[in-house]
């Protein structure tokens, strides 16, 4: 799909006040749906955090007016199809892929799930339990890395519409009533918020039929969400999450004004890729922290929200946001190396900001990204997701946007963008650790934190370590806060 056709669709729909429709027809026997509503957790009413998530869950994993959830599962089972929902701050997506043999029967039920929800109390009880158990057990209890990342977002966006986890807050989830969800559905599941995405081998006329069916939703309005700037960070702030755990997971970040469509996005994409391309071993952080020093399993950098990174190599589409943060992800390190690892990441960041990329590093990263971008959209469903995100960001289709921008980009622009947007101060650090008091004392002391190796290291590394182990964090007692894990997301 091209920018011009996507825009035509968008403009035509705006004129006729119909749902926007994006189609990627192909001869595949599979048909993929992405039904997106431009609303999400940032629109949760105050004190009712989790409304957006539970509303979407009631549609995707609850019954419709005609059928109980149990009956829906019965019909879907032989088709091996599942409907999933994903809620982010400003976007909610319902996605499914079916074989074209089953398209008609699947779509009949899928449509009724989204347009005629059943709102059954037993579904709400089950899904509320799922939400609470996800926050308390799956995330807080069993995944230190994702916990650290999510706490980082909550801290950076405290007091901001982005300031709570997409699934919600436990105490609010426990109080939510069916009427809260129905009200959210009425207000936000409107045609003005809707983008229908359809890809694969669907028959002629099908796309128009879907658009017509979804025209029963209220026309509007679009979700009006005022997004203030996140509270400015001063110096370095640290949140230590106390829990019984073997190792220390660290995340570092700060807000950036750059998102897709911003003039500096391609430049910062190059910088991020060179510094810490997700789950790839060529990034600078990975090389210096894991390959040369054996500190942990991997170290990466991001300029866009990328949840579930420990389970996947490519990000999910439809997590589009107006505001993003820059983030460093340090995978769990042995407790005695936590102070050193944090210093090394900041030391590398400092080096990046001061020195930028060499012409050669820039050229190699540009070449990588120009090809790698094809892999992001290699399934029809992903291509569709990226096309929808491009509508959100008002850019051409993602692959052309990135490739064309990279072709024009110069190393000086990358280094200027690095200096403009990246830094080693005015940032937030989160560490999930067992002995937080001790870690706090070490961080505050700014004492050297030498690393001990199990094998000889090159002189260059040992000399660099001498600088890293003394790298000043300059923290004051009020900058370092300890929170027991049990208090998070409550």
């Amino acid at each position, binding site marked *: 799909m091209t920018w011009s056709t996507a825009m035509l669709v968008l403009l035509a729909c705006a004129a006729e006040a119909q749902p926007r429709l994006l189609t990627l027809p192909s001869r595949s026997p599979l048909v993929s749906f992405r039904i997106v509503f431009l609303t999400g957790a940032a629109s949760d009413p105050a004190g009712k955090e989790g409304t957006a998530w539970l509303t979407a869950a009631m549609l995707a994993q609850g019954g419709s007016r005609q059928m109980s959830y149990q009956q829906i599962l019965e019909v879907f089972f032989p088709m091996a199809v599942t409907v999933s929902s994903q809620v982010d701050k400003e976007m909610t997506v319902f996605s499914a892929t079916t074989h074209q043999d089953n398209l008609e029967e699947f779509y009949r039920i899928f449509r009724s799930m989204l347009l005629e929800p059943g709102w059954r109390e037993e579904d709400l009880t089950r899904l509320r339990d799922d939400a609470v158990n996800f926050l308390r057990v799956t995330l807080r209890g069993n995944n230190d890395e994702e916990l650290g990342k999510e706490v980082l977002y909550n801290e950076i966006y405290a007091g901001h519409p982005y300031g709570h986890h997409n699934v919600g807050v436990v105490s609010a989830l426990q109080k939510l009533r069916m009427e809260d969800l129905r009200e959210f559905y009425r207000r936000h599941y409107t045609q003005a918020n809707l983008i229908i995405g359809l890809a694969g081998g669907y028959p002629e006329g099908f796309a128009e039929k879907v658009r017509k069916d979804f025209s029963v939703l209220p026309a509007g309005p679009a979700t009006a969400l005022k997004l203030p700037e996140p509270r400015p960070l001063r110096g370095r702030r640290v949140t230590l999450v106390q829990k019984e755990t073997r190792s220390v997971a660290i995340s570092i970040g700060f807000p950036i004004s750059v998102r897709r469509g911003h003039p500096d996005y391609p430049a910062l994409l190059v910088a991020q890729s060179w510094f810490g391309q997700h789950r790839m071993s060529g990034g600078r952080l990975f090389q210096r922290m894991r390959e040369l020093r054996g500190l942990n399993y991997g170290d990466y950098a991001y300029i866009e929200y990328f949840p579930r990174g420990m389970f996947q190599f490519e990000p999910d589409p439809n997590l589009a946001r107006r505001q993003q943060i820059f983030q460093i992800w340090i995978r769990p*390190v042995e407790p005695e190396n936590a102070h050193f690892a944090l210093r090394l990441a900041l030391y590398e960041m400092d080096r990046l900001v001061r020195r930028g990329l060499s012409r050669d590093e820039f050229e190699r990263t540009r070449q990588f990204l120009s090809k790698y971008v094809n892999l992001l959209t290699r399934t029809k469903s992903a291509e569709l997701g990226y096309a929808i995100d491009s509508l959100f960001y008002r850019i051409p289709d993602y692959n052309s946007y990135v490739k064309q921008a990279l072709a024009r980009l110069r190393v000086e622009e990358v280094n200027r963008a690095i200096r403009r947007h990246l830094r080693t101060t005015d940032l937030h650090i989160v560490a999930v650790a067992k002995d937080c008091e001790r870690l706090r004392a070490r961080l505050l002391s700014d004492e050297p934190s030498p690393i001990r190796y*199990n094998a000889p290291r090159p002189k260059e590394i040992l000399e660099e370590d001498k600088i890293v182990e003394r790298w000043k964090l300059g923290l004051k007692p009020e900058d370092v806060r300890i929170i027991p894990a*049990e208090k998070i997301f409550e």
Partner: protein
Amino acid sequence: MRWWVTLMLCAFLTAPASERKVFPYSWDEHDFPNGLRLITIPTDYPNVVALYIVVQAGSRNEVEPGKSGFAHLFEHMMFRGTRNYPPEKYEAVLKAAGASSNAYTTDDHTAYHTTFSKEDLETILAMEADRFQNLEYSRDVFRTEALAVLGEYNKNSSDPANKLEEVLRDTAFDRHTYKHTTMGFLKDILQMPEHYEYSRLFFERYYRPEYTTIILAGDIEPAKAKELVSRYWGSWKRGSFRPEIPAEPPANGPRSNHIAWPTPTLPWVVVAFRGPAYSDEEPDHAALDLIAYLGFSETSELYQKLVIREQRVDILEAENLRRVDPYLFCVWARIKKEEDVASVRDEILATLARFAAEPVEPQRLERVKRHLRYRFALSLRDSEAVAAAAARYVALRRTPATIDRLFALYEQLTPATILAVARKYFVDAGRTVITLAGGGSQ
């Protein structure tokens, strides 16, 4: 999609069961004189090529005591370079190709996979051939990489599911190497830096053409791929090592174990029975696949009762892993309240006992077979997924032909076979039950 693929995909669900091809691609298989096998799978997805190099050695091959986790550590070492391609150059080539590259290790195999643009096929094949033949790393680099493996253990260690698997295997097996997970025992991981020589031995034994199959799926020309593989991999020397994997003695259970988890978490129960090895000829393993879905998938009676109606359980799933040697049939449940653990365990046991007591309804059996066919078709969403799916089966029988043979076997299974297989395996002697409960308060 090319017309012939579309036709095949459409036809497989409507054709008579005996003629159905579930793996819809027309693939080619070629054996080189040194024992290396190449499988080419052209797909219609343009520009992209997915390469999977499958080595039929995994944690099952870790026969020496104290060496658990070595196949996986070795997978890490494979990224440490050769004389021609030191790690920086290896990275630079991958980067220039815009490639996505990684690897994984399981019980029976290790797979190295790279997805890239078609014009880089020769470059990537040449470079991979070099590291499989000429891998070189120093003792110091080895010791450093062993720490990255410890880092991997550490990042997994906050999830009780990993601990459950570790204890389940250790409890259920006495002699076979399935006793340990692929990650290995922590005590062995901590000792890894000391075993440089063993790592070289592992390479000498298993990184040989007769253990290796190259899978290429995507925008490829099979003849050209064959010529390239012959050019770069043809001189690789065949080995001679055959491991003696200790056989597990007959089951003498029932056995059980409990894990006290140090932090708050929901309790788990795992009910396992000794099961058969993977087979595309004998019905046993395939029948247990069907039982897994009949008994514990979203539409099963037990799931509907425990998860949907009574809402006492939030995760319920059965697992019947395809393994070279006999492994376990397992049912996993995460339970919302501690006091329900015993009754959920009993419900799972009663469900399994029913399969051994009465035949299942034929219609239900047909629904599961249909589910499995569509599930597999829906998983083939791009060239990478096609190669990945093929790799899992190639690890077992060295050919994608086993996929169609397995699905043909499913079609032949009747309620009577299900009954007989359930009676054979769901017996007290083969049973292991593991429970886990969290500490502290929520």
